[in-house]
């Protein structure tokens, strides 16, 4: 599904990502972890087209998408959420999700103004699908609400619903559990499982080690912009370099059971 080859980017003098290579197989849940400043979110921004790499290639479904802007990546089946929520607080919850489906309802401004027939039907269908997605992610209670009225945890799910509205082949989740308590994190874990089971490939950046180890098929560990390790949770947790750089002994012990 995704193959990253020798990807690098520098900001001024800072090499945020150095020569990273890894691949993600279809239908898998692949996590990217590492201490703060390791370059995880930068990597995400590179993959989702927000940044252009200095060198290297990103092969998404066989095509090199390294310099493509996010709009084109969306067209190719990639979707993402954001670490610092990027919910449109000026719109209602359901409208936010409907925005995610924008590409499916392809229609220009001038056609919109003339109100060509069929629009009402398609809009109603889109609305229903958005409501279904909000249920799917567990934010069904907020279907009638405005984004500004929703609590943080619900907004995180809303972003996921919006990303799913495009029926993506691959979903990038940027710290989906950030700011959530243990119960909410457990629910997010179940949600990610549901999403992966429905056939969507998931790539996530996360700090919560319990979530990462229980849900991922593979883990990429980054440190100071480079790849430190890439393997199954057991392999990664047993890797002495990773332990030295990042994991605590108690968590490793927990996973070994």
């Amino acid at each position, binding site marked *: 599904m995704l193959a990253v080859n020798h990807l690098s980017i520098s*900001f001024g003098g800072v090499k945020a990502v150095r020569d990273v290579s890894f691949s993600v197989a279809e239908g898998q849940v692949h996590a990217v972890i590492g201490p703060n400043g390791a370059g995880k*979110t930068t990597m995400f*921004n590179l993959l989702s087209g*927000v940044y252009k790499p200095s060198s290297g290639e990103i092969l998404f479904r066989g095509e090199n998408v390294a310099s493509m802007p996010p709009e084109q990546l969306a067209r190719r089946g990639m979707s993402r959420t*954001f*670490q*610092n929520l*990027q919910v449109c607080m000026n719109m209602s919850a359901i409208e936010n999700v409907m925005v995610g489906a924008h590409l499916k309802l392809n229609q220009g401004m001038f056609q919109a103004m003339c109100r060509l027939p069929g629009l009402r039907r398609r809009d109603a269908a889109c609305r229903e699908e958005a409501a279904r997605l909000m249920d799917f992610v567990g934010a069904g209670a907020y279907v009638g609400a405005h984004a500004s009225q929703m609590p943080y945890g619900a907004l995180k799910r809303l972003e996921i619903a919006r990303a799913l509205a495009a029926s993506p082949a691959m979903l990038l989740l940027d710290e989906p559990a950030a700011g959530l308590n243990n119960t909410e994190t457990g629910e997010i874990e179940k949600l990610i499982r549901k999403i992966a089971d429905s056939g969507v490939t998931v790539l996530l950046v996360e700090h919560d080690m319990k979530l990462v180890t229980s849900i991922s098929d593979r883990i990429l560990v980054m440190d100071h912009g480079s790849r430190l390790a890439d393997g199954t949770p057991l392999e990664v947790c047993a890797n002495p370099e990773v332990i030295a750089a990042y994991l605590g002994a108690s968590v490793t012990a927990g996973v070994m059971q």
Partner: protein
Amino acid sequence: MLAQFLQFLFSGITMGLTYVLAALGFSIIYNASGVINFAQGEFIMLGGMATVALTALGLPLPAAIAVAVGIAVSAGLLVQKLAIERARNASVVSLIIITIGASLVIRGLVQVALGKDSHALKAFSGDAPLTLLGATLLPQNLWVVALSAAVVAGLSWFFGRTLTGKAMLATSHNRLAANLVGINTRNILLLAFGLAAALGSVAGIMVAPITYTSYDIGVMFGLKGFVAAVLGGLGNSAGAVLGGLLLGIAEAMTAGYISSSYKDAMPFVLILLVLFFMPRGLLGANVTERV
């Protein structure tokens, strides 16, 4: 040839220094509160007009100047207290309209009180022209340079050496953090507005003997001061100085060599060019948006 060029240069520097003070006023308020104060131009107007009115009433010039600056500062404090403080979390557009509303109120009051005529203020130390390298200089031009230099020096001392000045800088970098270390940010904001108004009024007063002053000069002055601030880098004091001088000189050169009727368009052509090619201004920092 050289004489003519120098003539334009001197006139450009004179006007440019007014823009410097106006730009500094914009920067100080912007730094302290994130607000672009469209009423800045009216402080400039208030300085000149109030001084004219007070001297006409019989006050000696130094006293008139002091009172005029005081009036402008009061206006600045009122704008902050009555308007900006209440519009705490307003959007950019709302704040722009509020300060424009404030500028209309100030301009309207001056129009009602002092009429629509233009006035000239008497030069501080006479009209006897001096010559420098073939170009004519009025003593007032020298006053402008001297006063501006004094003001800029005063501001650097204030921001660099006094506790209050540093507190203002701290507020501009991070208001919450400044609050947490005990800085009274509300007073800082008041101070910022008062300071900006003082700067503006001084600019208006010192240039009033050279250009005529009337109730409606505030708009163009304010806009050009804003252009100078953005030109140099919004919020950057050195940028304000650079921007103001560049703007004044560019304007004078346009008036002299290209067309005097289009001289007013030059600042805005400049700002479009800067915004298209160097949006952070000449000395501004490059910021990338973090997602």
